[in-house]
């Protein structure tokens, strides 16, 4: 009897571990794909095209979920990742995600980027006011300075559209915690310096 229970636990444990490791593996593979796609300028072209369409037709086009839309670099925590469109499980399993409907980094408005606390934003709590963030999105290359860092409840309405360019990074809080997160860490940054290239050269 004890042997049977042991065997059952062994098999179930092995399956759970395999699933978790497999999901991590899929995330890493997708992250590599996203990096390659970004390097191939597909993401830049898509964003530039969307921005061009919005500029010329007064309409807003957004990339499909999972498409690379930006690159984010945070020197203080050694983070250099490609941002994918969408914040669903598949996107966040691979890379930080851009909240659909929010602005893109560098555009007027609030650009919201989220990531898992156990993955890409596992050191987001180390950021302090005054630290810098660099983003690259299509034709925009921006440097940001962190202006606020706060913890809010998971049901608090903490993300608002802003008239000026704002970058908001979110992850679950507490960072080192297992299971559903009761709170969220919100880091807000304002542009420090921006460089814009033409749509034609970007696409």
């Amino acid at each position, binding site marked *: 009897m004890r042997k049977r229970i042991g065997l059952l636990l*062994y098999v179930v444990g092995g399956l759970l571990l395999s699933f978790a490791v497999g999901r991590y593996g899929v995330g890493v593979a997708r992250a590599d794909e996203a990096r390659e796609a970004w390097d191939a300028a597909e993401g830049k072209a*898509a964003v530039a095209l969307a921005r061009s369409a919005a500029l010329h037709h007064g309409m807003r086009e957004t990339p499909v979920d999972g498409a690379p839309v930006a690159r984010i670099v945070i020197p203080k925590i050694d983070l250099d990742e490609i941002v994918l469109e969408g914040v669903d499980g598949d996107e966040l399993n691979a890379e930080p995600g851009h909240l659909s409907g929010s602005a893109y980094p560098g555009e007027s408005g609030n650009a919201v980027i*989220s990531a898992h606390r156990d993955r890409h934003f596992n050191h987001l709590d180390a950021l302090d006011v005054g630290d810098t963030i660099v983003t690259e999105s299509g034709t925009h290359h921006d440097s940001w300075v962190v202006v606020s860092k706060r913890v*809010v409840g998971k049901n608090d309405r903490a993300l608002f559209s802003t008239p000026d360019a704002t970058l908001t990074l979110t992850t679950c809080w507490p960072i080192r915690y*297992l299971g559903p997160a009761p709170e969220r860490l919100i880091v807000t940054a304002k542009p420090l310096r921006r460089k814009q290239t033409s749509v034609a050269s970007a696409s």
Partner: protein
Amino acid sequence: MPTRRLIVLSLIVSLPAAAAAQFTTFIPPQTKVMDSAKAVVAAQKTAQADTSINTRLTNLKTWVDSAAGVVAPSTQGQDSLSTANPDSAAVRSSATNTSDTAALRNGARAPETASDLPLLALVGVVTLGLGALLLGAGGNRRMRTDA
């Protein structure tokens, strides 16, 4: 008899003429739907090259349809799709994101970023360890019994 023939003859000639006179001024009623469709097609032809007129066309079509008593279909999605580059599979219309934008404007919750994977991995390791422990204990007991 000739007088009677003359009257009949004049009736035969004059009656159709009178009837025709009535029907020549008859304009068959056209359906309002057809009118609105024609107006929109005509406006589309003149506005194909001009994006500013193209923008106004949406309002024009809505106005024409509303005047005709037809419920105007939403043209925003079609217009967005028609202006998007079909070569780019990575771009879609943002019509589906309107609610997201509105939610952000009114205050949105931060996305759920708590991953289940660390917990699953931990439970998996613990379960695996327990299983191995029980299997090992069972094996040791059998060895002891055999001895």
